């Protein structure tokens, strides 16, 4: 009798290879997975790399629950400016530095202060508006840093979203199809175990998504001159963990279903809030606290926030560790849940 671990490894490898061959020979699926994100990024680059958006965004440091209106400071009554509460000073100053917000007003200390980025023309406009608004004088603080182009900011979001769809639908539909056609029943008649089968599907999909998205990322970096401040290895580690957790999420959805329509519906119910809440196209910095906390439950949030931290701020491994831990925990939970719920046959 052969060693059970090597036998298990051989079965896993065979199942992963068979699935990879099936995917790679499905030309329509491959081309869709490659072409769609490239066009999306190019389109966004074309649309958003022009002049900045007209709306000014100003963070206000004040105790939680403070109502931001002109009674607090006359400046807060200015139209065409979005004001929002920011809990942490350092994080807010960093956003001014990156020009993700145009000004920070600190009303927590007795004598108020404000920060602008000296390299941002919009900061200077806001400074003029502040002087004209009257009210108690605020002390001027400056920081500097090049503007983050929207395309630099949105690309991690778009690629993250594409990865999410590839993970959820790529695995969910395939397993439901296998179950419906009776292929899973056939596999169940072999020594292949549920955990080996699921892990094989996961690994095969993971490798394909990493390879395809690395190519897409490289193309985007060259075409759009994307900013990349941090380490490629840290980015790869983050992406691999995020893909693992999102595929495992798809496995939970497809654990028992035999209807493609139902699977599609459930996957959409999961994917849509992720797309909206995880900051793909717009920052959720100004969103209500509850929404921000909810977003932390989704793997896509950790992928996008982590990737932006690495690419835009040059975050180190230690700095993205909370995202990595969250993704690792989700991966384990979803995989174990998926294997426990898994059924080989329908009905």
């Amino acid at each position: 009798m052969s060693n059970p671990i090597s036998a298990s490894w051989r079965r896993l490898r065979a199942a992963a290879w068979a699935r990879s061959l099936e995917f790679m020979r499905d030309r329509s699926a491959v081309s869709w997975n490659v072409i769609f994100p490239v066009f999306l990024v190019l389109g966004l680059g074309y649309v958003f790399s022009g002049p900045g958006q007209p709306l000014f965004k100003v963070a206000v440091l004040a105790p939680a629950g403070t109502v931001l209106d002109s009674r607090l400071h006359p400046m807060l009554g200015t139209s065409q400016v979005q004001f929002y509460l920011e809990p942490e000073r350092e994080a807010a100053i960093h956003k001014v530095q990156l020009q993700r917000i145009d000004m920070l007003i600190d009303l927590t200390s007795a004598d108020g202060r404000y920060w602008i980025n000296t390299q941002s023309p919009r900061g200077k406009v806001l400074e003029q508006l502040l002087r004209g608004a009257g009210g108690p004088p605020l002390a001027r603080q400056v920081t500097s840093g090049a503007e983050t182009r929207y395309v630099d900011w949105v690309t991690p979001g778009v690629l993250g979203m594409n990865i999410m769809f590839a993970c959820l639908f790529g695995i969910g539909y395939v397993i439901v199809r296998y179950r419906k056609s009776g292929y899973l029943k056939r596999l169940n008649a072999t020594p292949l175990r549920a955990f080996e089968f699921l892990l094989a599907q996961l690994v095969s999909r993971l490798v394909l998504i990493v390879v395809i998205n690395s190519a897409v990322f490289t193309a985007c970096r060259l075409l759009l001159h994307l900013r990349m401040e941090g380490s490629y290895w840290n980015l790869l580690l983050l992406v691999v963990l995020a893909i693992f957790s999102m595929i495992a999420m798809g496995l939970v959805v497809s654990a028992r279903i035999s209807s493609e329509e139902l699977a599609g519906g459930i996957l959409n119910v999961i994917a849509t809030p992720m797309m909206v809440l995880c900051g793909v196209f717009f920052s959720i910095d100004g969103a209500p606290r509850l929404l921000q906390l909810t977003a932390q439950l989704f793997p896509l949030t950790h992928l996008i926030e982590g990737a932006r931290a690495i690419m835009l701020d040059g975050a180190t491994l230690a700095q993205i560790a909370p995202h990595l831990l969250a993704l690792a925990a989700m991966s384990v939970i979803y995989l174990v849940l998926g294997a426990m719920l898994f059924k080989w046959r329908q009905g």
Partner: protein
Amino acid sequence: MATVLEARDLIKQYPRVCAVGGVSFRVEEGSCFGLLGPNGAGKSTTIEMLEGLLSPSSGQVLFRGAPLGSHYRERVGIQFQSTSLQEHLTTRENLQFFSALYPRRRPLPELIALCRLEEFLNRDASKLSGGQRQRLLLAIALVNDPEVLFLDEPTTGLDPQARRNFWDLVQGAKAQGKTIVLTTHYMEEAHLLCDALMIIDHGKIIASGSPTALLAGHFDEAVLELPAAEARKLGDSSAYKEKGEIAELHTQDVNAAIARLLQAGASLARLRIRQPTLEDLFLDLTGQELRA
């Protein structure tokens, strides 16, 4: 002869229906055991319990005298009634994949020759004809050189020639000492391949034994078939059974029956005399057509 599989009072109860209501039988080493019955009789449920894919509600399946253990799947081969394979994989790749799942493997060239897969080895498995596909599925069921081979209606939907080719392959596997458990709708197939038969209906065994013994035990008469219009000339409608345009006369004395027909002025131009078949036996026992 040693017993390979033994079913002891197998019952499978679903919430609203009892699929199998207590069946016991033995499958002997190297034999081909046929499970017959109309649709919904409990054949598939019974065979799936033997395959270890379905747990009985009560009763037990023993493999070589012991309950089915964790390695049972490595020692049996299964061909389902309808199986879809992974898309975009060739015949050879499908064989390689299934082969890698087992610790004991039969050399692929041997399997390819046994199931005559040479001509479509590199063809996408989804592009195979019905007969080719069944040959590939049989090869997949044999990749681990199993001790017991389960074939669940393996020739349903095949044309007569493909069916005969498939029977040759099964006889080849049998000649190599494999124990085979077969379910089928085709009586000719059961008669040709099986050493022992079990007919079940409504989840119960209604007859069992070798095909010859079953027929000998139930029939000691011959069957005369002729056009119904000719049979009617006998006048006595209880003497024959009409089946569409054909009438059947069951008799122990063929000569006397023919004499009566001649006397009644019936034409014997289309008369056919045959021995009763398993199909007759089945109809006799269950009162319904096997393919119903």
